[in-house]
């Protein structure tokens, strides 16, 4: 296959094309091989349907050759297109003797398909021109600059698109991820186990009804659990001890002070001042 298209890369072809079309290699202007092909096809100045694919292939190969000569770094797809076109061209030129490899469509059909793709891209190019030459809002035409103070808002439209929904989701998951790596935000809790030990320790001295916040350990270390955590864990632990029958808890009304007292005998509790 490579042998088949080597002859096309000779200099006469390049010079012919170059001299005839004064085609300037400017990769910046092209999005990809198909865009280059379209630009080249335009130089043939014929209906895209009557395009000579053989000639187009030559033009493209010359383009690639020229780009390489000037040390343009060509993306792989430009080169893949070059070899495919060389192959297509060789097949178009060869007399059709046997049915190729069977599965492959005839070269003429492949050429027609390429012409179709170019037509399609050309149609979209024209569409861009047609659309952008229309009067555009806030560039050419303007809606009322100062709508009434009592604005009538179309009621059935809610301003939220699927894109915004996705964006909202991703933003949060990102934030969540960042939070996870922020050690400063870690919340230390007063372990239930520790609260139970603490209660069992002071239980013998709790023979009077004592308010919960006086029973809970006082927070000393600013890095440690919060006072709320001490109180909460102490309450949980006390409920376990109630279940075990070791102490009683009472509360007069909702949100009122919770009082704790041991069951049975024990030493009096020394309250901290």
């Amino acid at each position, binding site marked *: 296959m490579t042998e088949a298209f080597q002859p096309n890369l000779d200099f006469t072809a390049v010079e012919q094309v170059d001299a005839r079309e004064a085609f300037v290699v400017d990769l910046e202007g092209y999005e990809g091989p198909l865009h280059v092909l379209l630009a080249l096809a335009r130089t043939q100045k014929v209906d895209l349907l009557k395009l000579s694919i053989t000639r187009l292939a030559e033009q493209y190969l010359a383009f690639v050759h020229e780009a390489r000569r000037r040390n343009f770094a060509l993306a792989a797809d430009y080169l893949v297109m070059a070899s495919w076109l060389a192959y297509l061209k060789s097949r178009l030129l060869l007399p059709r003797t046997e049915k190729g490899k069977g599965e492959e469509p005839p070269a003429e059909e492949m050429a027609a398909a390429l012409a179709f793709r170019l037509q399609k891209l050309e149609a979209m190019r024209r569409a861009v021109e047609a659309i952008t030459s229309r009067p555009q809002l806030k560039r050419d035409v*303007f809606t*009322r600059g100062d709508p*009434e103070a*009592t604005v009538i808002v179309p009621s059935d*439209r809610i301003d939220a698109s699927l894109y915004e929904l996705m964006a909202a989701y991703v933003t949060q*998951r990102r934030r969540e991820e960042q939070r996870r790596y922020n050690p400063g935000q870690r919340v230390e809790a007063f372990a239930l186990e520790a609260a139970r030990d603490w209660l069992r320790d002071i239980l013998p001295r709790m023979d009077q009804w004592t308010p919960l916040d006086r029973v809970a350990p006082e927070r000393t270390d600013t890095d440690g659990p919060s006072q709320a955590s001490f109180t909460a864990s102490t309450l949980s632990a006390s409920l376990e001890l109630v279940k075990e029958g070791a102490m009683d808890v009472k509360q007069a009304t909702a949100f009122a002070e919770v009082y704790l007292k041991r069951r049975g005998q024990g030493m009096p509790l020394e309250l901290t001042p």
Partner: protein
Amino acid sequence: MIQFAPDDTEIERRVEALLFAASGPLSAAEIARRLPEGADVGGAISALRDRYQGRGVELECVADRWRFRTAADLSFMMTEEREEPRRLSKAALETLAIIAYHQPCTRAEIESVRGVSLSRGTLDLLLEMGFVKLKGRRRTPGRPVTYATADRFLEHFGLSNLYDLPGVQEMKAAGLLDLSIPVGFEVPDPSRATDNDDEPLMPGDDDSPEFAQDFVAED
């Protein structure tokens, strides 16, 4: 653009367009500045005033400036029929997004992703708009209520079912996840969510207003 010396009709057109597009009332001098030298602004304004006389929109002079406003006798249409814009707040949109992808999920789960507690009214709003519904109760301590998206959600976003929700691939395609994709970032597929852990709501749970009230009170 070639501009021939415009006639009175053309000047009137231009004044009309300027007054319409302006963000506030314009004085004759301000209008004249944007017209060709010597244009009869006064004449154009008074012609416009006559033209709009008795129409639904009238040209009005306030403090030597001119503006269009709707005819005074039609003001009843502007006030009575006004409707509240239904714009989703950032919080509402974010909450909706989490419910959509993680459904069914509890309030606590939503808060854990958002990192802030849900303000009163955010969920209520989504429930009221019919974007979100109460789904069931989680079989965990406290039996918290779970939320899921409702039909209106699918309708609004033009999805035929939950399977159509864009996933990681689309988030990438839309440029939302590019450079720093968090390690192990996964988006749950709500269409494969299992309800096994949940129990259905008791009859009346979902439409009893006290319940919603209760829930709001927890804020």
